[in-house]
């Protein structure tokens, strides 16, 4: 069926076109980012000026900001909801679901996903789960407040904290829905990549973006379901008196509880069995898109193509067996701590190789500093910074001091905050012309880059040091502790930097909307790139290839080949006109 035959609703709302679904995810994700970002700004205000009155916020949150002053329980709700929204409802939606849906079929030469209807269903489940998550704010007692890790008993007992009533129930339901939807779309990715490739598109000719989505989907499909099970078990503990996660003898808020025989550590294992692989599910696509973007702006092939794909697989596999490095001081057996420490360090090897392959892809090129390239370069730096912080935390001995401090906050913001954020932006600036047929504004884009990267370092590198000094995380205020007095100036500095960061993102929103309407028209291939999507019209029609499917003749990164007339050779260019080099 062509576009014209479908009404508006079937075409843009209940669409089964992977490109529309991708864009739906991207827009939903950015709406959620707006919420998550606003929450972060409120937290930073409280940390820099604890207990100050902000009259204008009272109207928005009559309970949490009663009298304009933030309550401690509202602060931990903010932490919880900010973390959850950013990880699952922003980065996952935009980068993994949004770009994954958009790019996989057009990059492998398919007309759509393997299961288009299932794809639509996944999106609507995802949208529903976002709504349920937001509804948590309006629950009596306020939003969930047990952290994004939702450790029981705090998350299991309604009297433990105001948000552990209905707010936490909604949180759990939203997570279960989210995982359900994510698993469906993961299966769709795997099926599509394995069985829908155009003639000639062997696995070793896939762009690294597709490779990264493939590994990410496999990891996601294997690692996520246990949390669904855990979420259901926790709901049972909360509402039907079971004791999966609750031991005997609990006395919460003066009340003796009847539970018997469970242990909170079980939840931690189940949670981190998802939680840690989730980090790779998010990071691999960010690394993948950057490997597609670098060659287009250096005009040379990527460095170490096969090795990079192998490293993805290695990281995916190793990522599934190191979850315990979040639990070094949790009370689990110290010998398993040693195992997790050693295995975690093994992951630094493929990570370092990927890092050097990114550097090698820049080396010797002919760099064009366009906005997508700037973000890609920033990502390389962030991947290094985040990775080195990870070596500290993966080391059980160092983690004794650093666990649950701001060092962790600094580190994971570089990794799941920064690498994924820059990957997301690089992807948006790069594929926006394909998606909407217009270019984004370069000047605004560059200001966005500079403000983002300088502010990001100022916020999160500084937090590593705030953490080394022993500052615990998830604190409503730091006024009570003398040993933290030297950190106050730095905390205020971080808050100012956070506002710069926030303002820069609004600039991006302006650029996005403005370019959508007024941007310069983009041709078929504005970056002169090689992968299949750049042979399609911008935007591509429903079904992508109107005629026959393309035949793939070569790998994805044939730039500046000696025999070619142009400095790039698309994947469909006949091998007899330009020899295949890889």
């Amino acid at each position, binding site marked *: 069926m062509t576009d014209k035959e479908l009404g508006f609703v079937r075409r843009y709302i209940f669409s089964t076109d992977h490109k529309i679904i991708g864009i739906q995810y991207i827009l939903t994700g950015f709406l959620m980012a707006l919420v998550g970002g606003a929450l972060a700004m409120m937290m930073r205000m409280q940390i820099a000026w604890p207990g100050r009155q902000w009259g204008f916020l009272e109207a928005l949150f009559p309970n949490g900001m009663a009298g304009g002053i933030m309550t401690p329980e509202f602060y931990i709700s903010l932490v919880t909801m900010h973390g959850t929204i950013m990880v699952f409802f922003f980065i996952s939606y935009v980068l993994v679901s949004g770009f994954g849906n958009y790019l996989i079929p057009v990059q492998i030469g398919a007309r759509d996903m393997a299961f288009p209807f299932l794809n639509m269903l996944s999106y609507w489940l995802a949208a529903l789960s976002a709504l349920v998550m937001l509804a948590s704010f309006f629950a009596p007692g306020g939003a969930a407040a047990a952290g994004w890790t939702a450790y029981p008993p705090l998350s299991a007992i309604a009297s433990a904290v105001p948000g552990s009533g209905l707010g936490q129930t909604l949180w759990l339901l939203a997570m279960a829905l989210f995982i359900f939807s994510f698993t469906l779309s993961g299966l769709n990715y795997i099926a599509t990549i394995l069985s829908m490739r155009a003639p000639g598109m062997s696995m070793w000719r896939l762009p690294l973006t597709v490779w990264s989505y493939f590994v990410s989907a496999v990891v996601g499909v294997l690692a996520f379901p246990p949390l669904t099970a855990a979420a259901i078990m926790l709901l049972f503990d909360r509402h039907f008196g079971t004791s999966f996660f609750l031991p005997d*003898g609990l006395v919460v808020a003066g009340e003796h509880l009847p539970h018997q025989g469970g242990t909170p550590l079980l939840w931690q294992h189940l949670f981190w069995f998802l939680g840690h692989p989730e980090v790779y599910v998010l990071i691999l696509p960010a690394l993948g898109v950057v490997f597609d973007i670098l060659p287009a702006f250096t005009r040379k092939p990527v460095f170490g193509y096969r090795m990079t794909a192998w490293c993805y697989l290695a990281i995916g596999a190793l990522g599934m067996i190191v979850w315990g490095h979040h639990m070094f001081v*949790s*009370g689990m057996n110290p010998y398993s701590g040693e195992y997790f420490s050693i295995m975690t360090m093994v992951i630094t090897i493929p990570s370092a190789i990927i890092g050097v392959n990114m550097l090698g892809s820049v080396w010797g090129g002919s760099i064009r500093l366009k906005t997508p390239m700037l973000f890609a370069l920033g990502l390389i730096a962030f991947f290094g910074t985040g990775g080195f912080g990870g070596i500290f935390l993966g080391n059980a001995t160092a983690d004794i001091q650093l666990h649950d401090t701001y060092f962790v906050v600094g580190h994971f913001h570089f990794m799941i905050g920064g690498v994924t954020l820059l990957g997301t932006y690089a992807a948006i600036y790069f594929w926006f012309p394909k998606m909407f047929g217009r270019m984004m504004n370069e000047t605004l884009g560059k200001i966005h880059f500079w403000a983002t990267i300088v502010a990001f370092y100022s916020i999160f590198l500084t937090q590593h040091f705030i953490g080394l000094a*022993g500052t615990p995380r998830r604190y409503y205020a730091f006024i009570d502790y*003398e040993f933290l007095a030297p950190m106050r100036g730095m905390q205020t500095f971080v808050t100012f930097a956070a506002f710069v960061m926030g303002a820069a993102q609004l600039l991006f929103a302006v650029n996005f909307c403005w370019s959508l309407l007024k941007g310069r028209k983009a041709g078929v291939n504005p970056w002169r790139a090689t992968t299949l999507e750049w042979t399609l019209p911008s935007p591509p029609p429903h079904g992508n290839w109107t005629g026959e499917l393309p035949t793939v003749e070569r790998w994805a990164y044939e730039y500046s080949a000696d025999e070619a007339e142009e400095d790039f050779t698309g994947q469909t260019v006949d091998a007899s006109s330009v020899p295949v080099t890889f």
Partner: protein
Amino acid sequence: MADDNSQGRFEAIAVGLLFMVLAVAMVALGSRDWLPELASRHGAGVDKMLVYLLVTTGAMFLVGHFVLGFFVWRYTRGGGVQNRMASPKMERNWSIALGLLMTLVAEGGVLAIGMPTWTEYFASAPPGDALTVEVTPEQFAWNVRYPGADGVFGETDSSLIELNNPIGVDPEDPRGKDDYTAINQIHVPVGRPVRVRLRSKDVIHSFFLPQFRVKQDAVPGMTIEVWFVPTKTGRYELPCTELCGLGHYRMKGFFNVLTAEDFETWKSETFAAEEVG
């Protein structure tokens, strides 16, 4: 299409410098207030580990940023591509080199420095003369108990917990008669090993002594022990580092390290007062 590499030299230098200088400057600014001063013997191992990591990964961090900055500056100057593709041999060699480097730095650190310290903390028994203190946190306070003169804790039972028996000490158990309890105040002598026996009444809390490099979660349903040797007298703050509810940020206790004589005096005064009362 003409080469559209119209980037000014200026932009390349700016971006190059960004990576080379910004990161370094941030580190320099940030590291003014370092780890809090060390006050325990075990902690020396943690500090050694941290310093080792700072030096090795710090060097890689600087080199990495410098190389990236240099590449941006160097290869943005126009002209064509200078190294189209690396040979498979070069790619392989770089991978092997990095594999070796990371194995040495990361695994080497864990095995050579980390493991002995880790073992000392969590997998070795404290010496026989260790002082045992039981710490049972609740939202939002630290209940402290000493076994008293007999050196043995009396039985506790959570069903006995009530307002003036916060950890449910069994009044029938003779061994518990001399137990001494307190809230938010721990007293120990300097130089003698302390064994902290952690339990929890309600949710997970975490016992954190930043100056001692000690951190251990207190998990309901479990009894977890951690031991260390204080080396400096003083009054140290004891924050909780596992999110435990709305009062998490003000769940402050004090860890008082006294000289041996002061500790004996404190003990005879307070323990005795307890028994009389």
